[in-house]
């Protein structure tokens, strides 16, 4: 059973998700690479195998793979299959990209609320502190430095 599981990529398509199926696939592959599940050189399932496994049309999987290839995340070798690109720091780069994406959205929202870049950065520090966990509470109360 374990062996069976490891043969599967466990990529999923959620039909309640309004985003197109190829985008869902791209994000899941990015995620696998970002967390290190799929290291450099890892072989991806063939297009037709993944189509059968996810029950999604071949053309959709092809599109996801070709966009991942264009982004430099995977390479396809004719007749041999598709592999995670051998690029130093790819997983770190992807995680940074995700962080940048979230920060850009926050910056956007901040701008709409009329916050300056400095005020936004200060707010970010506060939020980060609040999420640090138990150790954070040992620090002196924040009201002190804010006044």
């Amino acid at each position, binding site marked *: 059973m374990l062996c069976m599981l490891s043969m599967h990529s466990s990529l999923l398509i959620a039909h309640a998700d309004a985003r*197109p199926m190829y985008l869902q696939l791209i994000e899941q592959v990015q995620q696998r690479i970002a967390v290190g599940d799929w290291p450099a050189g890892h072989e991806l399932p063939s297009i037709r195998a993944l189509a059968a496994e996810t*029950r*999604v*049309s071949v*053309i959709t999987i092809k599109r996801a793979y070709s966009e991942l290839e264009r982004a430099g995340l995977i390479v396809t070798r004719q007749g041999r299959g598709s592999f995670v690109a051998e690029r130093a720091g790819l997983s770190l780069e992807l995680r940074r990209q995700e962080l940048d994406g979230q920060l850009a959205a926050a910056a956007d929202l901040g701008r709409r609320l009329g916050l300056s870049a400095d005020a936004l950065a200060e707010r970010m520090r506060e939020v980060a502190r609040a999420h640090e966990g138990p150790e954070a509470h040992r620090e002196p109360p924040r009201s002190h430095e804010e006044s």
Partner: protein
Amino acid sequence: MSARVIQLEGVEKAYRFFRLADVHLSLEAGQVMGLVGANGAGKSTMIRLLMGMLTADRGEIRVLGHAMPAEQALAKRHIGFVAEDMGLYGQATLGWHMQLVRGLRDSWDQGYAEHLLRHFNLHTDQPVRGLSHGERVKALLLLALAPRPRLLLLDEPTTGLDPVARHEVLAELMDVVRDERRAILFSSHHTQDVEQISDVITFLDRGRIVESRDKESFLDGWRRVSLDLPPGVGVPALPGAVAVSTSGRAAVVTTREYSRAVEEACAHAGATIRDVQRLTLEEIFVATVTSQREEQQR
């Protein structure tokens, strides 16, 4: 590799109250085509023409390289066909039917047939008469799939199936196209099934093909654009617009050719884009058919 498994050129078939007109269509090996149409659109007529069960009044039909219906005996060896009204012998069991087809088709794969029995939760000793609708459809699919034909022609294979059975059937269909030499053409009212597994989508309405395109570019082109119109600004003419509705200063335009040109046209007219949404295949189908019918009536 890109061999045509189906080719229709200028095909016509007229009945007293219905006419299939000027059909051009092709399907390549390794592909799945979903045929969508309202009741009476001509889906079954088209599938029967492909099977050689009907003769076209005009035009050319080739299936797996064979002219239909003249060379149907050659083509049918490699076709699996399922239609709801297909005859099974009520008193006989599924096992008896499997033996019958096994005797007729050299390519019958018994191991695969047994896999399908288990996956579809069917039993060889079941008399066909006692089968539920869903079991009957699955039994027909089993008989069509087990010889591993190069082409599957399926008329409404998922209609009337419960959700579990539908998933089992879709899984088996996608398993077929692991082999890039094989192809499937299926008709369905269930647009979600079509959207999920088709490489090419064809819309048929009142005997005419109103659209036939690869799924990705098809779904990508359609968008619903919500606009805010400042006072004095009318709804801009957008590329590919098929429907417009307005309410006060808000307007919603449905387009089949979404691109930067749409955004530019809005900016140029002074309208602000509030939201851009994708459409489901069902919404696209209804919008296509409605706009086509309006055009024909003009």
